[in-house]
């Protein structure tokens, strides 16, 4: 990727700190990052190095104290609340370490939730058939067609993570942000998940993945190492 022609997401001089009692904890100390269209970037670092915080800031789940995040050359700080919601819903897809599926919904409904989130009840009536078709197709791709009526607690960890990936892909996001997607899985299942990411990347999906594991990070096209809130190597 080249930084000038197909940059999709970037951040510049990002600072972030948290108040921990009487202490102020500096998590990110001036991070610059550029993600190109179709990239598979791994952000690696030890626990507490600020990699998850960076991912949250990139996905507009959190805000930085200082610095700017650009999506398609537009500053996220200039986005209204409504545009931020739209950005989270349509432009990015999140995959979390602990899957974060809703226990009250079935597998199919969890995947559809991404589509429902921006639809009114009436709007949904017109769109539901197409959405269900896509959700079924994604679940089929993830090898979960037989599980669509199950609820999350009836699935294994790997299956849950694949449901989470299907949900993240439901709205055809431009970027997939994954926070330790294999962190809660055994190595074989983790490997399966990584293969899913690799195949998505091969299909042209932009992926930013956070991991503390060097071996997993090495599967990405580019590895960025964070040490004490600063980028140590690219």
């Amino acid at each position, binding site marked *: 990727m080249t930084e000038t022609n197909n940059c999709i997401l970037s951040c510049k001089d990002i600072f972030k700190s948290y108040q921990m009692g009487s202490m102020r904890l500096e998590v990110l100390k001036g991070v610059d990052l550029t993600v190109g269209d179709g990239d598979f970037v791994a952000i690696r670092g030890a626990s507490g190095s600020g990699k998850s915080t960076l991912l949250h800031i990139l996905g507009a789940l959190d805000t930085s104290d200082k610095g700017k995040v650009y999506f398609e050359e537009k500053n996220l700080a200039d986005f209204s609340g409504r545009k931020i919601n739209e950005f989270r819903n349509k432009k990015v897809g999140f995959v979390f370490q602990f899957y974060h599926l809703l226990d*009250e919904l079935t597998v199919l409904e969890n995947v559809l*939730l991404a589509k429902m*989130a921006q639809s009114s009840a009436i709007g949904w009536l017109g769109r539901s058939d197409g959405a269900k078709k896509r959700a079924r197709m994604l679940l089929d791709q993830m090898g979960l067609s037989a599980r669509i009526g199950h609820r999350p607690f009836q699935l294994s960890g790997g299956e849950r993570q694949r449901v989470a990936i299907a949900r993240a892909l439901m709205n055809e996001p431009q970027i997939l942000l994954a926070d330790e997607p294999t962190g809660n899985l055994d190595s074989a299942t983790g490997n399966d998940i990584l293969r899913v990411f690799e195949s998505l990347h091969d299909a042209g999906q932009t992926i930013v993945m956070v991991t503390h594991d060097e071996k997993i990070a090495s599967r990405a096209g580019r590895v960025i190492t964070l040490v004490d809130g600063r980028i140590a190597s690219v």
Partner: protein
Amino acid sequence: MYNIILPVRFFLRRRITILAVFAVAICVFTVVVVMTVMSGLVSDFVEKNHEFYGDCVVWTDSLVGFGLYEEFITELNDTDFVASACPVINTFGLVQSEATGKNAALNLMGIDIERQIKTTNFADTLYYRKTAPSLAFVPSYDPNLFGCAVGVDLLVERLRTGQYNQLTYLPMWSYVITCFPLTPKGSLARSGISLAANSKTFFYSDNSNSGLAKVDSTTIYLPFEQLQTLCGMDTSAKRTGAIFIKFKPGSDISGCSEKVQALWRDFTAKNSDFALAGLFKNVSVRDWKTYRRSTIAPMEKEQTMLILLFLLIGLITVFIIFVIFYMIISRKSRDIGILKSLGVSKLGIVRVFLRLAFLVGLAGACIGIAAGLVFLANINRLEGWLFDKFGFQMWNREIYAIGEIPHNTGPVLLTIVAACAIAACLLGALLPTLSAARMKCVDTLRVNQL
């Protein structure tokens, strides 16, 4: 769409919502049962007063009474809104009862039986002469004797079941009635010449059960002319104490009472040269409710107080829902984070939890109302069972003049109660919901990873 599916799923799949529904249902049940029973008691009492006194009363609080009443009744009967009117004397007297062997000061009510039964429900209150009320003052054992009807509680034992232990025959009991006749000026008649009292013996001819405990336990009914004589009101210008009026069906009681008031003003102006015109100034014209205000108002006040108490129950419901929703939202903080990460707005989060609150309110109201209606349908059976098994009665029928426990369950009251329950739930859930909407998704997701 998520804001319809999720509230329904949270409602159906979270046990804590059962607790919330149960809390609302108990409050609704209590309100429905107590409000409808209280409302039933009050409306029963109010209705009995209405039936007993007619629609409008022309009366004086002076024991001397007022004159020209027959002329005024004629004028009333000539109007197009009066159905009937009757003169009534309400006074006090000493009563020596053969039945009880006691002397007592009691209320005496002189009524013109023919006109009274057209104006009030007096006929329905009788026991022996219910089907022939015009014979209420004719003792069946000797039609030549002067009869009197006695308030049921003065004579007949009221059982704990609320029924009266009526005698199957009419006993020949005498009542010696003594009155103190007053001149039109208010002094004792014949004072200084002989005893300033008139006495006459009447014989028990019937008993009257108006359902008004105070009336039934203190009143003896006599023929109007007889009491008029005893009270010294049968002078050349005959006097009465009151006129009860019944309006034609469908009349506006308040409006017609104002017409009677105007008619009375014109009548007194026209008869200002009448010898006893001075007594007119003590006469008032009121609709029956105003006339009985001192009796009805305390009960209505109690009902108002009860409504205020139920507002407190409403506040407790709000507080319970507040606490339960705080718990629900604390437990669902991760889900809130997930929804926000999927682009759900703050308003979307508010909608999810307020719809959940609406469902809790609706279910609680439906269950509470259904349980309340079932309870009310069986309240008398239940009270009877408690009485048979344990001797317990909610209202001791030896004291309270009610038969079955009444209740007033109308769709309006039930709708209001249900709407209040839902509103209380929405109000209680509002603060936790707003705090849920303000949650930062990254915080909730991070916390739930620990």
